[in-house]
Structures are given as C-alpha cells and as structure tokens.
C-alpha cells in the first residue's frame, strides 16, 4: 500500500540534514532549568546564558533574521560538529533537545546558510550527562546490521515471490494461496523501507480501496482478489493477465532488492521505521483492511511486529543504558502482543481475520497501542 511512502521519504530528507531531536514534549516545565534561549538574528548569535550544567539541554531557537538560518554546535576543537539545526525559516521558533557533557562548546549561527555567520561560546559545567557521541559506535554498528537484515529479507522476498508467481501463473491455485501469506511476511517485516520507494510501492502493494478512478491495479492484492475471488460479480483474470501480473510482481521485487542493496540507514530512520510498522498494524492489520480477500491479516501483523522488534533488538544496548524504563516498557509491550498473536497461531498458520471475535480484535488493538506508545519515543532516546 501507498500510505507511508511519502512520510518515510520526508523523514529521510529532513532528518538527514539534522542530528538534533526536535522534541514536542520539551516544554520548559519538564526540562527544569536546562533551557537556553538562542536567538539567531541578522547580526548576532545570542544565548540567554553562557554557562549551563551538563545533562539534557533544551535549545529554544528563534530566528529573528530575515533569512533561513542554521545553528551548529561545535566541540572545543571548533571543528567537530556535536549537533546542528538547519532550515529554520524567518520568525520561526524551534525547540531542540540533546545531551551535553562538561566542556567548552562553540555555537555558530549562519543566517542565509552561507559564510561563517556569528558565533558564541557555551561553557557546560559538570553534571549528569554522558559524553557526547558515547554511543556512536554502537549506533553505527546497529545501522550496519539493519542494512544486512533488510537485504536478507528482500532476498528471501524475491525467492518466495518467484515461487508464488510460478504457482499462480501456472494455475496451481491452492498452492499459491498457501504460499501467499508466508511470502508476504518478508515484505511486511521491511514495509517502511519498501514503501520509501514511492514508485515501486503502489505497483506492488496497492489495495483496491486505495485506487482512484481510472487507475490500473497491479501487485499482490490484485492477485489476492483473483485467488480468493468474491462469489458475485467478479470476472477472473485470464491466463494472459495472470502471467502479466506475475511477471510484474517478480520484476519489481527484483528491482526492490537491487535498490535496498545501496541504501544506508541512520539510527533515527530505523526507530522511525519501527514506529511506522506499528502504525501499519494499527490502521491496516488490526482493522482487517489489508488482506480483505484472503483474511491473512494476522500474518502481516506478526511480520510487522517482528520488523519493529528487530529494530529494537539492534538498538537495545543503547536504549537500555540511556533509558532503562523505556526498554522495560518495550519488552513488555512486544511480549504482550506476541502472546495475543500466539493464541491465534497453530504452527505457522494464523486464524482467518473473519474468525476473530470483536473482543479479540479490541484486545489486539489495545496491545498494539500499548506497544506503539513507548515505541514512538525510541527516536528521541536514540538520537538525543
């Protein structure tokens, strides 16, 4: 389905250019005294204080110049960038939160985004913060492993897609139906990455309900409908149409694999992706809207959760150190969702969505919310 593709690509574009976490919950009252007002004007880079104690610090930036500004925070060597905030339009205010350890820092404001701009010094006195960049190696490692994971899933996806396409186009419908939900799980584990390719996603995963007037329909769900055809008013695909649909599926999945091989990830993209997987579950799978014909929503559900859990596992060592309480909540959340899914599973087969009671659906939705809520804070913890 097309739904998240734009969002994922936005977050890549915007967030790549800034390492700072913009925190919606960083209101003054919560962050105590560690707030620095920073004004980037057309003639100065001015802070409300030049000394602050180490810890989580909120920079409340206001651009009073008439140009787009950017703010850099340099370490004492004046060369290594600790953090940066770019693309702040005139008159726009933005709060940014991150951890600073003891030391001397230099803040540079560059209205107009050209030249040296203006700078000022910030002394950070001893406090509770860990050293800036302390987790960088672990995070880099996590990102490298995630890349391997995505390539692995995409490789298996292609392999299973080819099998499925052959079964379907050669008329082995029962075998194709049996393989369908399992093959799709490789897609669902890496769904936010797959959807970040705004051209491939609609070709491969568009649902009938998402079509606009006159748009042609291709991909998994077209075949799904043909394999689980409605009893009334449905015209089955011809042999030729089946072959075309199968070929398209294989061809585009192959292209997906090629593309993910050259993708690199930042930790925040992984954590945002994990949150998006939970969004997918909440809006598509718990509601039974994703697999409307086959009723195999719980397979997708399971795979989405596994994809999110993979991200958490890779980031766990950092999260456990920076926010142990969040770690606990997430582990409890995953366990809870899995136990509900396990109750609907026998071997590798899940209950048909239509067989779920309203009570079971509500329990699952509540468990997804309970996991998604702490998961939505993963990015600010990992990057902050």
């Amino acid at each position, binding site marked *: 389905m*097309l*739904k*998240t593709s*734009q*969002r994922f690509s*936005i*977050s890549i*574009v*915007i*967030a790549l*250019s800034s390492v700072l976490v*913009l*925190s*919606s919950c960083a209101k003054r009252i919560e962050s105590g005294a560690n707030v620095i007002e920073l004004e980037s004007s057309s003639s100065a880079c001015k802070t409300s204080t030049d000394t602050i104690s180490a810890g989580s610090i909120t920079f409340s930036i206001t*651009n009073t110049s008439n140009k*787009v500004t*950017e703010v850099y925070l340099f370490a004492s060597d004046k060369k290594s960038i600790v953090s940066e905030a*770019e*693309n702040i*339009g*005139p*008159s*726009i*205010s933005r709060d940014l939160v991150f951890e600073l350890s003891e030391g001397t820092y230099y803040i540079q404001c560059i209205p107009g*985004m050209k030249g040296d701009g203006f700078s000022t010094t910030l002394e950070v006195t001893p406090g509770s913060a860990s050293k800036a960049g302390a987790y960088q190696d672990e995070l880099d490692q996590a990102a490298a492993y995630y890349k391997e994971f995505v390539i692995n899933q995409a490789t298996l996806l292609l392999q299973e897609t080819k099998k499925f396409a052959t079964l379907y186009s050669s008329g082995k419908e029962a075998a194709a139906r049996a393989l369908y939900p399992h093959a799709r799980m490789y897609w669902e584990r890496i769904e936010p990455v797959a959807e970040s390719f705004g051209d491939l996603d609609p070709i491969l995963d568009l649902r009938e*309900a*998402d*079509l*606009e*007037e006159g*748009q042609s329909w291709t991909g998994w769900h077209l075949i799904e409908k043909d394999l689980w055809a409605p009893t009334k008013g449905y015209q089955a695909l011809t042999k030729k149409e089946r072959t075309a649909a199968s070929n398209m599926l294989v061809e585009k999945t192959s292209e997906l694999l090629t593309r993910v091989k050259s993708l690199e990830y930042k930790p925040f993209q992984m954590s*945002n992706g994990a*949150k998006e997987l*939970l*969004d997918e579950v*909440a*809006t598509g799978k*718990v*509601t039974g809207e994703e697999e409307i014909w086959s009723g195999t929503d719980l397979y997708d559900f399971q795979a989405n959760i596994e994809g999110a859990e993979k991200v958490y596992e890779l980031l766990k060592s950092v999260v456990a150190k920076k926010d142990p309480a969040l770690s606990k909540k997430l582990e409890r959340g995953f366990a809870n969702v899995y136990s509900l899914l396990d109750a609907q599973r026998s071997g590798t087969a899940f209950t048909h969505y239509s067989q779920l009671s*309203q009570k079971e*659906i*509500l329990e*699952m*939705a*509540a468990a997804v*919310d309970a996991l*998604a*809520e702490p*998961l*939505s804070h993963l*990015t*600010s913890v990992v990057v902050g």
Partner: protein
Amino acid sequence: MTEVSRRVFLGGLTAAGAVAGSSGFLLGAGSDSAQATQTRYSIYGEKQVGITTPAQNHLYLLAFDLADITRSEVKDLLKRWTITASALMAGTLNDVPQNYEAPPRDTGEALLAGGSALTITIGFGPSLFSTAEGDDRFGFASLTPLELRQLPQLARDAIRDEESFGDICLQICGDNSIAVFHAGRNLIREAFGSATLRWSHSGFNGAVPASKALTARNLFGFKDGTANPIGDDDLEENIWISGSSEPPFMNGGSYLAMRKIKMHLDTWDRSPLREQEAIFGRSRDAGAPLSGGHEHSAPDFALASKDGTPLIPKDSHLAIAHSSRHGGKKMLRRGYSYENGLDKVGNIEAGLIFIAYVNSLNVNFIPVLEALAKSDALNEYISHVGTAVFAIPRAPRDEYDFIGSGLFES
C-alpha cells in the same frame, strides 16, 4: 456587553442582516442567562446566512431524503422549514399561545440559550433534481444547478453511504450547543411524513470566539482555514454565484461541499513534531509557513535548504492545497471537529466535518481535492468516510417568500 455588540456588528457586515436583541423572548434573556449570546441573524435577505457569518462554536449538519411526496408537498415542506427556521433564529418559536392539551410547539430545551448567533442554511442535493436513474422526481430537473453532481471517487476514499449524499441539507450553527440541537430537533419534527433524516453530523469548534477573527484548530492541533478568502471582492470572486448561467434561484447562492474526514488520532499522536510540521508545511503553534513569517505570511515554496529541498515539503498539505497552486482560486472553509464514540478497534472515532463553500465546484474545489487525494502527506493519518454536495439557493427575500421558491416559478 461589548462582546455581543461587536458580534452583531460583524454579523451585520457579512450576513444578510443581523437582528440584535432578544425581541420576542418571553423571559428577559438577561435574567435567564448572563452568558447567553444575544446575537440574532435573520433568514431573509439576498444571501443565506451561515456561510460568511463568523463561524460559531457548534454545528449540527442534517441531510434528509424526501419521502415519496408530490411537488406541492415539497413546496409545503420548504415553506414550513423557512417559517420554523426563521422563528428559531429570531427566538420566537415559543411565542405562540399554547393549547394545554396539545404538544408544545417549541420543545423547550433552549429557552435559556438566548440568540446563540443561530444560523440555519439550506441546501439542495443532486438527488432532489433527479435520481441516480435520471428520474425527474419533482419536475426540477430542468433547473438543476450546473455543477451539482456528486464528487468523483478518489484514491483511498472509504465512503460510507449512510453518512453521505442526501436530497436536502440543513446546516445549523450557533454558539450554544443546546440551541443548535434544539433547532435541529424542531426542524426534524417539521419534516415528519415528508422527509426522513439520512444522516446527521455534530461538530464543535469552541476554542476561538468568532469575534476574535482567529483561525480555529483541527484535532491534529493545526490551524484550519488560514487561507480563507477575506473581504467582499474575494468572497464575490470565489464564494457567491452572480450573473452566471445558473438558474435564477442560484443568483446569490453558492455550493457546499462536505467531506467527513476521520482522523487517526492514535497514530498521529505518536508522530514526532518534526514530521507533523512537515506534513502540514506549517509550524504547529504559530501556524506560520515553514518558509518563515507568521500565520498569514505568504508561503515561499521556492525557499530551499542548502541541498535544494524546499523548506515547505512538496507533498505537504500547504504545498498541495494553497490557492497559488490552483490559479488563485479559493474556498471558504467552515469545518468543525467531531467525536462519535469508538471505532471498531476501540479508538476514538473523531475527525473533521469538512465544509467548504465555493461558487464553482469544478474550478475551486474538485482540483484541490484531487491533488490532495493523490499526494498529500496527511493522507496516512486520515480517511474520507463521508461525502456530499449541495446547491445553496439564494435566501428567501422576506416573510412572503420561502427558501427555494425559485424551484416552483418555472
């Protein structure tokens, strides 16, 4: 009472004519409720009220399907509705001698509510003129407003028939929720036997008094309606129909487009502010375009970061919907938030009753709707579940006229 007189003044400026005071109230409104808004509008004039009238705090939007009645019964219903609506707006519904043995004319729950700046706006759906099968049910087909047809099916539409369409709509707005409900209830009573209620949507919008001329916020926390047309010229150009080839009763009228948009609050509330602002293309609290400035600053879509990415993302709501992307054409948005219990997975069923007024659906509205459906970053967090369009006829001229009288003049 400066607040009140200012409202009357504003109302007088934009609406067909405001009637100040609580004339006709049996009890002095001042002694009933010091809080009640005394502003009253009149249903009579050239243009209907409830369109450019400063948006009140509450909405009750009703759509009716006419029963299998005759043309003259339709006429009677429109007459009764006009009289009752007029009395409701003037606060005189209870001003009739009451037979002790008969049900009260006025149901009574709003006797303390004052004027409440009540407006009742009436519109005609495509099916009033001819059915989907092309049946000219009441002999109005030759008078069908030129652009009156249902909106096209768009990508991701999840339209529920039972919350869409309809022969006639009544848009009831006011500053007091019980006054608004009361008006709807009494108008529904008036229709028994002639029309059945097809759907009803209740909306709220309370954070900003209309008189402050501030932009209300939707349930995602962003301002909604910043780019509305302002000033008579802008309104004439975009909202009111005049001197066109439309049937005469549309002269001074408009079109109403309704979309019931479910907003997925649970997933939205888990998204970072960075993403939320990128989706709308505006800062949340100030409402300024991300290219800078203040709420009403013109967005600069060309302003880019060093890597060439626009500060206002291309797929943001602002970038896609802004009038500068649509030949300067605007719509008057008059939306209200709604809450309607739980959805089937236990989340709050809530969102926006989107209402827009335009003088051309084909030019001012549908292209924007289509562009948004195609690529708005917001789509992930919303579903369009209801749809309707109505032609808004001119207002009844005076007490001797009724709404839609032009339908019977041919």
